[in-house]
């Protein structure tokens, strides 16, 4: 199974990391969408498991969660989904989700089962480093890498603490607020990348609010090891629910455009 470290090392450029909610808008379409994104150049996948109360998400991803749940998504099917993706290509997969779903399944069992299915890391949006003791040991035991968030209001001391428990990459939140596409890139992101880079060598991937190729290029040129694009790509699904072919074409073109804009000779 390919690790994050291997991926970053091979790439020699910023990794392109699209985010999807598993099973949005339904299992089969979701599978086609993710495969399309892989073919268009995704280097790592960030996958969400839909939750009824996603407090870190804006309207676009909330709606995706509702679509996925309405189409029958559950933990068992999410496991199956990950296996099918891994059979398609050995690409690193990070889950991004809420604690209650992990907790109900049983933390150890959840980590073991999803690692066996091919997941590299499980980032829990509502579990901070202060409670990391609830997940660190079982994650290590299961063979998972760890990913935690750093935000523009995280102080240096805390960044150090977070970095000391991180083996995969630091999920760097570009702005204050929930997930959602934004017109302009937050002016907090460049100083934040610089700060983190001055504290640790752990790869830095930036997400929340990155919405178009231009913004992705800015983040890449600021030294990010990865660019995570969530709401902007999930919005393509929302906007093309009636036309699956158009949906897949648009996903393909969007990922390709991001990949191209962030190529080393273009930034």
């Amino acid at each position: 199974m390919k690790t994050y470290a291997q991926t970053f090392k091979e790439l020699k450029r910023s990794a392109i990391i699209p985010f999807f909610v598993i099973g949005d808008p339904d299992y089969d379409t979701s599978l086609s969408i993710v495969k399309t994104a892989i073919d268009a150049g995704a280097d790592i996948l960030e996958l969400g498991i839909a939750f009824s109360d996603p407090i870190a998400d804006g309207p676009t991803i909330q709606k995706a969660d509702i679509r996925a749940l309405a189409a029958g998504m559950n933990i068992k099917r999410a496991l199956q989904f990950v296996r099918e993706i891994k059979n398609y290509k050995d690409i690193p997969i990070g889950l991004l989700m809420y604690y209650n779903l992990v907790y109900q399944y049983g933390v150890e069992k959840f980590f073991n089962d999803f690692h066996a299915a091919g997941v590299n890391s499980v980032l829990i949006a509502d579990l901070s480093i202060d409670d990391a003791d609830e997940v660190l040991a079982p994650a290590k035991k299961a063979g998972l890498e760890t990913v935690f968030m750093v935000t523009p209001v995280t102080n240096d001391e805390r960044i150090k603490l977070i970095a000391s428990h991180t083996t995969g990459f630091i999920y760097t939140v570009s702005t204050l607020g929930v997930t959602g596409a934004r017109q302009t890139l937050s002016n907090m992101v460049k100083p934040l990348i610089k700060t983190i880079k001055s504290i640790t060598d752990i790869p830095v991937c930036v997400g929340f609010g990155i919405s178009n190729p231009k913004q992705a290029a800015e983040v890449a040129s600021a030294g990010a090891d990865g660019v995570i694009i969530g709401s902007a790509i999930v919005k393509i699904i929302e906007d093309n629910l009636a036309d699956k072919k158009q949906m897949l074409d648009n996903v393909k073109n969007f990922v390709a455009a991001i990949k191209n804009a962030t190529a080393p000779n273009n930034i």
Partner: protein
Amino acid sequence: MKEKGRFGQFGGFYVPEVLIPALEEIEQAFYKFYKDPRFVAELNELYKNYAGRPTPLYHAKRLSEHCGFSVYLKREDLLHGGAHKVNNCLGQGLLAQYMGKTRLIAETGAGQHGLATAMIGALFGMETKIFMGSIDVERQNVNVHKMKLCGAEVIPVKGGTCTLKDAINDALRYWTAHVQDTFYLFGTAGGPHPYPTVVKHFQSPIGTEARRQCLEQIGRLPDMVIACVGGGSNAIGIFSGFIDDKSVKLIGVEGAGRGVNTTHHCATLNVGTVGVLHGARTYLLQDADGQIHETECISAGLDYPGVGPEHAFLKESGRAEYVCADDKQVLDAFELVCKKEGILPALESSHAIAWLVGQKGKLPPETIAVVNLSGRGDKDVGIVEKHRPVK
């Protein structure tokens, strides 16, 4: 954070990283000021002259006669705004002032906490935004109007089930984007640390007064203290006065809605399971995967699939007992208190009375029961009228 905010295995602060500094700041300010003489003096003055504390402990004689034992009502319904919510809002609002915050946000279900926050926003001259489920906006439209009169902006929340839990979701989302100048005035004894502790502290005058009043007026402690439980703030407020008095039974009453064996209720501690929601590990109404259930209850103020973590702990430790009353029993209790005492209890508080009335014939006549009458029922007259048209 200085503390973990745990009550046994319950509580904690399960929130996104971005909110940690804001919670830390509130924890720090709370411990800095809650015993500070100037803060305490200012708050007590507001409790007395703005809110109307202390509230009476009233011996409800005709209701007692009906039950066959003594019933005393702690009259939080007489407070400014019509419910216990003002206690917490004055405390947190003053804290926000001391912290130099300029904007208050709050969630609300019945509108009582939203109204109390709007009042305090006006009192302190702060910008105030109230998040309220769109269904609740409709069923509590009088409170919505009052909030607006006090200058608050009411934001209808259309996500999820359009009720209290979704209002909390959106308030948290808004806070995430405005952490630096905004104080989230949380309405119940739930949510992430330090809220359960902060809210309990600011609601504790209910219990302190009630205990003193029992000793003064009756000459002894009561046998039981009963309160309705939504998130659990009025209950923890009155329980806090008696928690060390092991002879006093503490009873929390949840909403059984259309029955706990249907999916239309909010009896979280009665039939829920342990999970993590809105920052706390506590009992929740959820499915096997951990998706949160819709709830339903005749009183919007109890309509929540979680519960404050200290109640989860009191349940597990056996110090308090949690029971429930269904919509029909609640309407009966509402009418009974109107007829016997000339007091309109809030439908939330009517849950506590309903359970107690159900003990008729089961308790010895010398029993003394104190019910926290957490709010007045004026806001509920329309709902009662719908179910029980007055002939």
